[in-house]
């Protein structure tokens, strides 16, 4: 008897997590989901875990997915799946994930605390499962990309990983940081506004 996972109504990425757990314990799993992102992500999980997949068509918006582990395939040798990003409509987000750093502080209230929090946030960004593809720094945020900011190594690591870092040129000029920007590309409002308007997701700490 296959294990049956009822993932209807569950928010992304819950259906994938439940399926993954079930596959660790059982060779045969049936999953019920009610959105196409969950269906696609479970297909990707199954293929990476070496399972055969059978989808019994959509009935009243519910997909029944039957997964059966193929013998002799070790999940360790398979490439990790690339999941579709989650969003509230169950549809994949269209544009890149953009982190907007509009200040050198995180949150409002105490600036000294805010500066500490922002440093910790930037340090964490590289390890995020759903991290940034672009980071935009403006207003006092540009100070983080300048010499002596305390997060330059983090920003350089992010750039090495392929994250595009845009730094507002007007702001660099205002804070007299010209020539001191040590990470990212000094950019302009056309690029900044354009990137934000095309973003699939904007994260602003």
């Amino acid at each position: 008897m296959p294990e049956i996972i009822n993932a209807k109504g569950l928010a992304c990425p819950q259906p994938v997590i439940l399926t993954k757990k079930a596959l660790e314990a059982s060779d045969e799993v049936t999953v019920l989901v009610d959105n196409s992102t969950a269906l696609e992500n479970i297909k990707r999980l199954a293929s990476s875990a070496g399972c055969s997949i059978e989808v019994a068509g959509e009935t009243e918006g519910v997909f029944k997915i039957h997964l059966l582990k193929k013998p002799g395939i070790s999940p360790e040798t398979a490439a990790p799946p690339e999941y579709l990003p989650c969003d509230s409509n169950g549809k994949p987000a269209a544009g890149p994930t953009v982190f907007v750093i509009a200040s050198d502080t995180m949150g409002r209230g105490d600036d000294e605390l805010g500066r500490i929090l922002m440093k910790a946030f930037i340090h964490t960004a590289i390890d995020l499962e759903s991290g940034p593809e672009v980071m935009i720094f403006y207003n006092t945020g540009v100070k983080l990309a300048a010499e002596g900011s305390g997060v330059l190594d983090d920003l350089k690591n992010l750039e090495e990983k392929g994250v595009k870092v845009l730094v507002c040129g007007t702001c660099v000029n205002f804070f007299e940081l010209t020539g001191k920007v040590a990470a990212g590309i000094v950019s302009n409002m056309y690029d900044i506004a354009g990137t934000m308007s095309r973003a699939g997701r904007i994260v602003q700490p």
Partner: protein
Amino acid sequence: MTGKPDYLIALFNSVSHVIRAERILNGQGIPHKIVPVPKHISSDCGVCIRFLPEYRDQIIQKLEGKTEIIEIREL
């Protein structure tokens, strides 16, 4: 040797202590970095100060009596 240096972290009781420590270390020019407390370490304060082992004594000395380090651990 791996490419990544081994760091130590200093843990504090509160963020106020971290802020004070950062101000002192900046003033003294001692290299350090504010990082979130690693998940596997429990701490009331969510941020800590990371540094290379060679600065350990200097940091302890400069912060002594001014802010309270509760623990220094390997990262």
